[in-house]
């Protein structure tokens, strides 16, 4: 069966520090991978998605970037965090079709101080 791992679960970082969140998927090949941010009461905001190694699409211009160095690895990064980057970050995977359901990891709660 497929599993998705996301770490760390919680993170507290000062403003201006770098960020690296990692996500890996097991039990499937060539998944679509996604990074979402969830703010309280505001639903899920799609940040990045990837249909293959090295292929990244950005949905929202911002202080973050994403990379996919391996088929089942997705990384969310920032060179300098802002206070507004605080939030709950979720990684997800799906099969190749856009309308297929997403399967989420357990998220990283990031607090920028």
């Amino acid at each position, binding site marked *: 069966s497929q599993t998705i791992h996301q770490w760390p679960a919680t993170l507290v970082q000062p403003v201006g520090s770098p960020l690296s969140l990692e996500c890996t998927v097991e039990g499937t090949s060539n998944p679509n991978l996604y990074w979402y941010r969830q703010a309280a009461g505001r639903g899920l905001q799609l940040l990045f998605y990837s249909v293959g190694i090295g292929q990244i699409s950005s949905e929202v211009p911002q202080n973050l970037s994403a990379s996919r160095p391996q088929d089942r690895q997705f990384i969310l990064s920032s060179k300098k965090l802002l206070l507004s980057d605080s939030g709950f970050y979720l990684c997800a995977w799906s099969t190749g079709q*856009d309308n297929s*359901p997403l399967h989420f990891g357990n998220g990283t709660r990031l607090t920028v101080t």
Partner: protein
Amino acid sequence: QKEVEQDPGPLSVPEGAIVSLNCTYSNSAFQYFMWYRQYSRKGPELLMYTYSSGNKEDGRFTAQVDKSSKYISLFIRDSQPSDSATYLCAMASSWGKLQFGAGTQVVVTP
């Protein structure tokens, strides 16, 4: 106007009652409809996945889609305190990405 509208709640019901959740949408091209359950500090978990109109039942959960009214529902029978969570609807067209509702917080009181 948001493409998907969902009342944030909270919706409080006594244990054993039926929980009724719904979402409305504006894009008539949506054909795929999903419901997710999210416990506090966890990622959303897929509950139901339906295509086009009609009903789908899975244990205590029933999902309904009314495309003519652009309205989807999730019913939870015999609710339990463990059903307390946030429920998110999501939908997509045959070519577009998933669009999520903001989620409804449900509290089932013993």
